């Protein structure tokens, strides 16, 4: 366990139409969350490149969340389906690399599911707090 008061830093990639909207709805619903997560907006979850996920871990992220529209709801027909294919490879690779599985999550969240978004952030932050800082975090990075 990390030293007391350590707060995990989580990077969340959200798609403009659904999960970003979900985060907004969580805000509108005032669903309180730990201040651990930084949202980066992309137009579609299909835009999230494993390159960005790796860069997030190597820059110091303790967890990375890949989120987007539910299957069938993608504003661009099937961007999220391709994300699922890439995510499978990403997950397998980071697992083989030795990174704890709980540091990487894929979650489809629609623009109306504010509470679900908030719960998701709460759960992940709690799990990551359990795991402690990421082994890939460079020295001296906050």
């Amino acid at each position, binding site marked *: 366990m990390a030293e007391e008061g350590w707060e995990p830093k989580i990077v969340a990639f959200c798609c403009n139409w659904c999960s970003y909207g979900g985060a907004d709805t969580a805000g509108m619903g005032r669903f309180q969350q730990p201040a651990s997560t930084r949202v980066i907006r992309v137009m579609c979850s299909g835009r999230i490149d494993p390159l960005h996920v790796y860069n997030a871990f190597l*820059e110091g992220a303790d967890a990375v969340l890949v989120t987007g529209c539910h299957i069938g709801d993608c504003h661009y027909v099937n961007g999220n389906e391709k994300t699922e294919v890439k995510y499978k490879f990403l997950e397998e690779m980071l697992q083989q690399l030795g990174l704890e599985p709980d540091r990487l999550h894929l979650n489809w969240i629609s623009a109306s599911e504010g509470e679900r978004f908030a719960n998701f952030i709460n759960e992940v932050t709690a799990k990551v707090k359990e795991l402690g800082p990421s082994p890939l975090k*460079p*020295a*001296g*990075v906050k």
Partner: protein
Amino acid sequence: MIGNVYQTVCPGCNMGCGLYIREDEEGALAVDFMKSSPANLGKLCRFGMKLAHHYSKATSMVDGKESSVEDAVKAASDKLKGADVTMLGVGNTTNEESLAFSKVADALGTVVNTGMGVYSELPTECHPTVGVGITLDDIESAKRIALFVDPYVQYPLLVRRILAAKKNGASVVSVGWRDLHLADENKYIDPDMYESELGLDSESVIIADVHPNTDPGWVKRMLNLALKTQAKILFMKPFVNATGVDLLCKGTGQKGIPEIMEGINEGSIKTLVTLDSDPIELMPDSDAAAATLTKLDNLIVISSRYGPVNKMADIVIATEPLYAKAGSFMNVEGQLLNNSGESTTGIDAMSTLAQNLGGEALDYQGLHNNVLESIVQKFTKPNYKELACEVLDIGPMEEKKGNLIYLYNPFMWFDEPDDNDFVMVNMNTVNKLGLGKGAMIALTSDTGTVNMRYRVEDMPDGLILTAKKLPVATGWTTIVSTEAV
């Protein structure tokens, strides 16, 4: 066959890495791996991998206008006849061309300066040890290795040799500015403590390097360390044929490049002839070097590459690219390595030049046999010359003054771009200046300011290391002030 395949040696440094250069039908170059080459098993470092961009072709020029090689040689002969000429050939080319160059020097009654001023301040009996070090295979059987170079940046193909030595049980101490992964410990200590602190004995190897800007005192200190601890020593050098040129253009009293620059500034040198040696690229302060060269009456450049000095030269004699030359090189181990190319444009040009100046004609075969007799015989089986001299008087050491320190590497010797385009500082400097991630650090010296990206390293406070030539640098160490951009 379609296009050409040349077996050649990488001009990056004195390691002698063998490789193939492929030239397709349109003349585009590509690097290919020569796995049978003993020095490097076909492996190449960052510089070797980018060689396709290195061989920029030179064009013969007379007084700023393009001309044929023959006219350039004719014009050069007229200029050189009876003149007081200084010649510079650091060893960026083959033994045979270097020998031809020294024949031209004979005709002019002068010597070829190899740019390594160090040699003229060392007793002749320790020249062989500085010239030819232990073999690369012997590094792998050393018990203890003291590193006075940063292999990752400066001589990368040493890395696998040192790792192999560690597998055979060697311990490695690095005496540099930053922690090296392959070093068991890093001792950035006062030079006087080297003998007592580094734990060297007869089964140890010291790896240092010598180049035109090295302080002779430093080389003596290295030799003394080897003498006192009976450790073997290997001096790496920055030019592919530094060893060959040193042996071919013998004689103490040769001038180093800094000395030549001073000579030009004082007006004692009026005419300079270079062979594949561009002072603007070689000197730490390129702008100062360029300014100095304008003071020359005659600047004659014999070169296979297009470099900044070509632009300033009165006469340029363009020779064929290095990989295409017929010729040989001698690496740091004293191994003779041959090009597969057959072109002799450079040699023929110098042959004509020598004849115009009263010397005899030269041909490749003659020069090659001379090389075999003069330097290879002496080193048929490369063996390490035990140091046979007393402890040397180091004399006044020009104290290291600056906090910006050069980590000389092949990209710097040719002043060519490299992706590793940053300076190194430690975390205290980052926090002191409040540098953000991905931000720039501003380095200011009395010659100007430059903004550079930075990498965080474990190294002494206040120091800044750079593997890239910076306009603000005036020597291999420079005093700079730093602030966040």
